[in-house]
Each structure stands twice: as C-alpha cells, then as structure tokens.
C-alpha cells in the first residue's frame, strides 16, 4: 500500500500559498537575489559591450591583418629607434610573396608625411606607399574613381587615392576630386580615386586622413629610399593568423640570414594580438564586476537560508500537523525546497528584467555600449535556481527531520 509517488503539483500549490501569505517578507527575501542578478546582468552587459565595441573597431581595420615592422637594432654601437631601422627590404617582400602558405594579400608600406596642397587649400597628412592589395588588407574600399594598378607601381606613376578627410580639407567647394592634381611635398600627383569613409580607429586615429600612392612612387619620388617602413599582410582566415605570424617570422629570418642564436631584427604584429591586448583590460574589469555581483548573489542566497530557517521554526506546528495527517519527510522537504526555489527563481526573473532595463538605461543615458548575451541571462537563471536549492536545502532538511509528536505541540 506504500505509494512512493510525490505530487509535485500539490506541493507547488502549498509553497505558493505560503509565499502568498507572507508577500512582503517574500519580497524582501527576493530583494537580495533581485539585486544580485540585476547587477550580474548589468555588469556583464557593460563589460561585454565595451569589449565588443573595441573588437568591432579593431576588426574594421581588418581582423586578419598582420604587419611586420623593423625591430630595434644597433647601428655602430648605438641602439636605434625601430622606425629608423632599414631592415625591411624589397627582397623580404619578394620572399614573402613567393614562400608563404597562409597569406592572402601582401603589401609593403612606405610612409611619408607632409603638407598636401590643392589650389589655395592645404592640409597636413600622411602618404602611404602601398600596392593595390592594401585595400583588401586594411578593409578600405573605393567610393569614387579607381585604385591604382600594378602597372602604376611598375612605372612609379604619380597617381594617388585620397581619404574622405583629405577630400573635405582640400575640396572645400564640393568639386569632384577625381582627375584633379594635388601636390605633396612639391610633387604633383593626380587623384584617381576616393576611399569610402571608415571613421576613427580604436586609438582615435582618423583612418580617412590618408593618401594612398604606389609604393614605388613614394620610395623613388618622395622619400628617396629603397627600404620599407612596414610590410602588411592578411592571413587567409582569422584562425590561421597565428600560423601566418610564425611563417612570416621564419621567412624573414631566412631572408635576413639570422643565426639561430640571433634575435629577430623585426617584429610581426597581428590584429588578434592587438584585440586581445585591447580587450584584456575590459576582460579584467568584466571579471571583477561579475565577482562583485556574484558576491551579492551569495549574500542573497544567505538571506534566503536565513528566512527559510525562521519560516521552518515559525511553522513547526504546521509541519507537525502535516506530518500527523500523513505528510512524509520527503513531502515536507520538497515543500520547503520548492518555496526556497520559488523565491530565488522569481527573484531571478525580476532581477533579469531589472538588469536588462538598467543596461538599456545605462546605454541610453550614459551612451555606454552594452551587449546582453543570452548565456549570461541563462547562467544567472541557473545560478539562482542552484542558490535556492543550495540554501534552501538545510532549512528544508531541518523541517523534514522534525518529530511530528514534538512539532505538533510546539509552542
């Protein structure tokens, strides 16, 4: 005649009724959980939001991008600044072009800065000598006109493509810049295209304040040098970015005839590194904020435990009565456990909503980027239920282990 079946539905109703009888206390108990969950959600939303905004900004520069810059070196016993080193040669570029496996585009870069003049307008800017692949590497597109070609590179043609800022600065009365001649360091150059605007990068640099020209033109006609300032490349996919980096290092070491014991006289940087460098601060902040929020969740859980203990003591006679009319230990245990979980899960739901609301408010009022991940919401939810079960367990056990004889006569 022993029936092991537990009617969860009935126990649920009992727990609901008990909470309903003590609404205000239930709400106060929930408050700990509500604040805990809401702060977890908000903190993570802000943390993830800032991380993502950095990531998207960096990816706008090309997330597969790698570049080689000359390393620090000695010149006649004097340690030299890296940028003045002349270690990147056309031979290196050729070696990379012919020997790579993981790279999709490679472009040398020769930089020059100076005043650009058109008519009565002038503006300080920098000119980058590159090849046409640079557009792919750096995620530039042509808005108007054309990009220069390999033929222009062979002939060191005096042509260029300008960024939006340069256009705004020089062509103040709205004329079409394509076909016009500008002068850069007294060299006349014909504009053959205009780049689509990209805006500022994550470091606040204006990516549109740029003039692209064939690298041979900059080398021969403007700077009169034979080396490169940098070599840009893009990995075939984001996932081979690390392999691409190792590959470039190997090729360049060979090309530079470095012995095994020598240090690299160049540096390979990848955008991935930049991303992790830039996001490490926000990652740390996220972990910190989440830890603080988790502590408040813990405090909320202890609040539940406390109230459940009080509730069990207060309702000792009720427990005694329930037992004497046939409730088993497991029925009482589940009744109180369900009550604790109901408090924590209801608190969790309110907390999630409040957290999302607060995040949106922060986004609207302070203009901070936010990003609410489904998994943080789910996680907070699971943590809440677990908190309820964990902190509700001991009071529920205490209730279930009461002796009905003592409990029913408890004063």
């Amino acid at each position, binding site marked *: *005649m022993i029936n092991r079946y537990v009617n969860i539905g009935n126990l649920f109703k009992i727990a609901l009724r008990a909470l309903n009888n003590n609404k205000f206390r239930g709400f106060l108990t929930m408050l700990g959980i509500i604040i805990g969950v809401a702060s977890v959600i908000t903190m993570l939303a802000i943390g993830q939001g800032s991380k993502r905004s950095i990531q998207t900004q960096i990816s706008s520069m090309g997330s597969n991008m790698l570049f080689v810059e000359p390393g620090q070196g000695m010149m006649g016993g004097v340690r030299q600044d890296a940028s003045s080193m002349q270690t990147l040669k056309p031979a290196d570029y050729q070696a990379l072009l012919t020997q790579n496996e993981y790279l999709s585009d490679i472009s040398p870069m020769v930089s020059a800065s100076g005043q650009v003049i058109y008519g009565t307008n002038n503006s300080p800017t920098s000119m980058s000598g590159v090849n046409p692949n640079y557009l792919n590497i750096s995620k530039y597109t042509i808005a108007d006109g054309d990009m220069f070609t390999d033929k222009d590179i062979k002939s060191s043609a005096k042509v260029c493509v300008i960024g939006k800022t340069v256009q705004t600065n020089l062509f103040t009365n709205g004329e079409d810049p394509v076909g016009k001649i500008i002068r850069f360091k007294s060299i006349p150059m014909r504009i053959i295209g205009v780049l689509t605007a990209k805006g500022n990068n994550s470091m606040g640099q204006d990516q549109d304040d740029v003039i692209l020209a064939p690298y041979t033109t900059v080398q021969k006609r403007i700077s009169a040098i034979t080396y490169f300032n940098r070599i840009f490349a893009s990995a075939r996919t984001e996932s081979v970015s690390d392999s691409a980096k190792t590959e470039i290092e190997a090729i360049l070491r060979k090309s530079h005839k470095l012995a095994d014991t020598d240090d690299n006289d160049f540096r390979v940087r990848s955008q991935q590194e930049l991303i992790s460098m830039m996001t490490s601060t926000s990652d740390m902040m996220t972990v910190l904020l989440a830890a603080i929020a988790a502590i408040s969740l813990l405090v909320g859980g202890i609040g539940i435990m406390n109230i459940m203990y009080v509730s069990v003591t207060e309702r000792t006679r009720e427990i005694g*009565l*329930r037992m*004497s*009319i*046939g*409730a*088993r230990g497991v029925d009482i245990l589940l009744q109180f456990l369900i009550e604790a979980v109901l408090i924590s899960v209801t608190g969790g739901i309110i907390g999630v909503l409040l957290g999302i609301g607060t995040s949106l408010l922060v986004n609207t009022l302070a203009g901070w980027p936010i990003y609410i991940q489904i998994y943080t919401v789910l996680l907070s939810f699971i943590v809440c239920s677990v908190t309820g079960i964990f902190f509700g367990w001991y009071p529920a056990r205490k209730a279930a282990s009461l002796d*009905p004889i003592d409990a029913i006569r408890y004063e």
Partner: protein
Amino acid sequence: MSKKIIEVINLKRDFVVGDETVHALRDVSFSINEGEFVTIMGSSGSGKSTLLNQLGCLDTPSGGDYLLDGISVKKMNKDERAMLRNRKIGFVFQSYNLLPKTTAVENVELPLVYNSTVNSKLRRQKAIAALTAVGLADRLQHKSNQMSGGQQQRVAIARALVNEPVILLADEATGNLDTRTSFEILSLFQELNQKQGRTIIFVTHNPELATFSSRNIVLRDGLVIQDTINPHIASASEMLKKLPKLND
C-alpha cells in the same frame, strides 16, 4: 461481534533520559471494536500522551504490538506510518491546528493533498461533504482566523473525517473551549458515533467527559487501572439544552 479496529497487545514504551530509563507504558493491553466511543483518562505522567502517540502511529512500541485495522505498526518505518495515518486515522487536537489565512474547505482538503489517489475535484467534493457533516456548509470560504473556537474545532473535525478514517483520535479536543462550545463539540462527536457509527477515542484528563462515552479506560503510571463500559451514556445535546441561555 463487531470488527476489532484497535488491538493493543502487551504494549511497552520506554524512553531513555540520560542514564535512566523511563517506562511510560509498562504493559498495556486492550482492544477497541468498531463503533465504540472510548475515553482514555489519566493525570499527567500517567502515560496517556504516550499511548495516544502509539495509537496515532506517531511512534512505535518498545515492546508488545499494536494492530490498527489488522495492520501491525511495530515494524513500520516513518514513511509507512505517515501513509497509514493518512489513510486510517483522523486527528483532532486541543489547539485545532488549522493553517492560518486558509479557508475552511482548503484546511479540510489537507489530508487528501497527501493522497495521490484523490484528484483535486474529488478532494473538493469530499471536503465540502465533511464540512456539511459538521454543520459548516455555510462557512466553506471562511478563513480560519475569521471563525470562533468552536467553528475552528468543527473544521478540524471535518478535516479528521475527510479521509474516511477507521478511527477518530481526539486529544483534549474540548480543552480550549468554553462550557457551551465544549458541549456542542461533544454532541457532534456523539452524533458521529451514534448516527454514523464512527469509532472514536477521546483522550482527556477531565473525568466529567467519561459520562458521555460508551467506555472509559483509566491509566496510571503506565498501566491500565480501570476499563469500564458505561451503561448510561449521557447526551451532550441534552446538557446543552439545560445550560442557561447566553445573552449574546
């Protein structure tokens, strides 16, 4: 001869308090048949509470055996006894023990909540029937704190009846009530016993109540010292009529 509902055979119950063993029940034997209204009396320390706990399957004997409706309780574990209480026993306590802020009908439904063979519709029907039987058909939705002591005890009796128990166990069920209400509750018990044939055990320290029962068992120091049939059962409802009218 009618069916034996309760059979107590050489029942012993010892408690160990510190180094001493207290013999709360030394050697108690009796049986109760269906349809009897038995009062169990004794002063405090006589072992009547211990006996009540045994009869109510809240406890197990140290020696001897107790059969409720033919089922031996001695070897049962806690859960089995809980199930047995749920199906066979109706408790009525001195302090009613109703759930606070809960309607009469929900209080009465409570034992059936722990019986998974009864669905919620049948539960409600049985609760209403039980409340009607104790004369509270018009108080179904009253909350426990909106009712008088007598009404609350009626709800408690309805709760004890709702699972159709083989025995009603009342523990000082009139102890908290004034004289008039006590007679009302007593006459309800008598009615349940005489008209519906309910078997009732009424544990009390009040010797007056013996005149209303069909049989009286007296305990002292853990032993039955008197077990008598009452040939002249007084009627509680008659007594009620003799009471002076209250101007309320």
